[in-house]
């Protein structure tokens, strides 16, 4: 390996003092244009890279924020990431993305790692209770924004969707389509987002006596899990099947749709109406275009970064710390036949 080039070598080659090189790196305006040019030439010539570890030691901070998400392969998260990156880039921040893979252990590892790396702030979406851990990180100097669920603590900024209303809208829509045997597919209910959507759906059901409500608890919320649930429903006698299904996200719904329609010839929506949640971009082009509950994904990421920047600048004072977006119903062919 070549010897590491330090600012000492840069100073020697540029024939300036160490302090001048340091000034040039940290406050270029304080160095005369002539010296700036000499130093830059030396830097280029030597291939000098500021050692960020050393630099961070002094400065304590780097111009990065980290976004930890439980499942980056869900297009929902990727869309939020896009908003995050857009807003962050406009402010000169780079974004590191980490996938906790719905594992508490990995999530902890990333939280610790990013904090130790001294990123400027954290955006965290989680399926676990995470506020306590974020509070500790903040006390040690790394602020954060909770993404996807409303924080309980007034001190913890968060960006979320009103999932109770979302669940209510989904179930109410199925009922208005004349469905009376409704199934809620999703889980585990320990996840806040899932529990809130369930609660909203329950409210709509409670308003309509004569409508039955079944909960099909799933360990996960993936396309593969949707296949499993749909196969189980198809195996039931026809009269025992639900006639309206609210799947707690679009991945589950798309998996179900495929198995119901392609493998079992069940007619959607005639035999079974189906609505998902998140309105990912594949929903509109699915085998039967999928009805869904939509949140403004990109604005979501933008709002999260804005809250974080407010925290970082210490000007968060009067701004609301919890941004809650209202969801909207998107009706397509999976609930209403053309």
């Amino acid at each position, binding site marked *: *390996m*070549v010897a*590491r080039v330090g600012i000492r070598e840069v100073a020697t080659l540029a024939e300036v003092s160490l302090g001048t090189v340091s000034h040039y790196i940290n406050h270029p305006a304080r160095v005369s244009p002539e010296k700036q040019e000499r130093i830059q030439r030396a830097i280029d010539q030597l*291939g000098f*890279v*500021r*050692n*960020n*570890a*050393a*630099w*961070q*030691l002094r400065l304590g901070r*780097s111009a*990065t924020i*980290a976004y930890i998400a439980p499942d*980056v*392969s869900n*297009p929902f998260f*990727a*869309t939020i*990431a*896009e908003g995050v*990156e857009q807003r962050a*880039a406009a402010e000169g921040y*780079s*974004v*590191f*993305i*980490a*996938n906790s*893979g719905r594992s508490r252990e*990995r999530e902890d*590892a*990333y939280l*610790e*790692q990013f*904090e*130790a*790396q*001294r990123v400027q702030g954290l955006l965290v979406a989680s399926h676990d209770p995470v506020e306590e851990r974020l509070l*500790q990180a903040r*006390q*040690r*100097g790394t602020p954060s924004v909770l993404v996807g669920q409303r924080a309980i603590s007034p001190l913890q900024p968060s960006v979320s969707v009103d999932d109770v209303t979302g669940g209510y809208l989904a179930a109410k829509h199925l009922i208005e389509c004349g469905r009376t045997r409704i199934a809620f597919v999703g889980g585990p209910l320990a996840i806040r987002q899932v529990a809130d959507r369930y609660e909203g759906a329950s409210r709509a059901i409670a308003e309509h006596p004569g409508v039955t409500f079944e909960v099909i608890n799933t360990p996960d919320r993936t*396309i593969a899990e949707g296949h499993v649930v749909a196969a189980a429903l198809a195996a039931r006698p026809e009269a025992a099947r639900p006639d309206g299904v609210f799947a707690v996200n679009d991945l589950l719904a*798309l*998996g179900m*749709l*495929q198995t119901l329609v*392609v493998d079992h010839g069940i007619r959607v929506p005639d035999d079974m109406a189906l609505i998902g949640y998140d309105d990912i*971009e*594949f929903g*509109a*082009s*699915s*085998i*039967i*275009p999928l009805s869904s509950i939509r949140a403004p994904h990109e604005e979501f990421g933008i709002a999260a970064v804005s809250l974080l920047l407010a925290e970082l600048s210490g000007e968060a004072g009067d701004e609301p710390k919890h941004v809650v977006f209202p969801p909207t119903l998107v009706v397509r062919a999976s609930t209403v036949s053309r």
Partner: protein
Amino acid sequence: MAAASVRDVAQRAGVSVGTVSNVLNRPDKVTAETVARVMGAIDDLGFIRNDAARQLRAGHSKTIGLVVLDVRNPFFTDVARGAEDEAASAGLTVILGNSDENSDREAAYLDLFEEQRVHGVLISPYGDITARLERLRQRGIQAVLVDRSSGDAAFSSVSVDDLAGGRLAVEHLIAQGRSRIAFIGGPIQIRQVEDRLAGARTAVAAHPGTELETIEIEALSVLAGRAAGIEIAQRAPDDRPDAVFAANDLVAMGVLQALMMRDSDIRVPRDISLIGYDDIDFASAAVVPLSSIRQPSALIGHTAVEILLEQTADPTASPRQVVFEPELVVRESSRGLA
């Protein structure tokens, strides 16, 4: 609140600074009683090890940096998942940077990873970064190219034979009786796009009476695919291609959405057959299940990390080029009418 230092921990635990350091770095050298006392003090004070300081001494962090072209493409998140799993089994984590097909952002992430002294870099390159990677290597950071074969064999790479994939896709369309084929993809400077197009050209050249039209789009996204699809749908029927090969599944999904719009009289595959690339999860759940070229995405991630670790353990080892063969997956969108 000021961050607690090793000194604070030592004082609280009533031991020397050296003992605290031993507890953190060589716990086997310290009695269990001392470990317990120091850990207790660490908890009390909320001490967090400063990785920046530690990395200065140790040289490298426990993190692999992965730069992808588009975090919204499920292909890349599958690659990331494979990389994470393999990295986790070696006690490493993976952080993602999304270059978003932008050379400035690509360079910024490489800078950040270098400054962080990451364990190694995996990158699906957008621009020409050979010189950049060479410099990383001189600084002891190995890099493996992902989803692109290394032109000069100076770097290890894990890729899929995109030439073969492009040829496979178009030969399949021709075998279904199609002769006016459109390739939709871009920017052409992305190596994967260039190779898939070259493969398509080879197939057309081998079959007299067939022709290839290239429709270049500015990004490999659903949105760009939809715009290209609308353009095709607006042409006079005789001017339309009878088959479309989309450079990836996102583009194909967008084309499909445009062709199947409510007011369109075009049917897929009756009038235009369609094949994508990557075989993402959503391809089989599309309104017309989408034919595609499958790449072993998670395996690509696994293998890339494996090679990176070999290379880091022995920097003198010669670079390895691993090329996987793509596989044709035929579904409804390109089935023949015969």
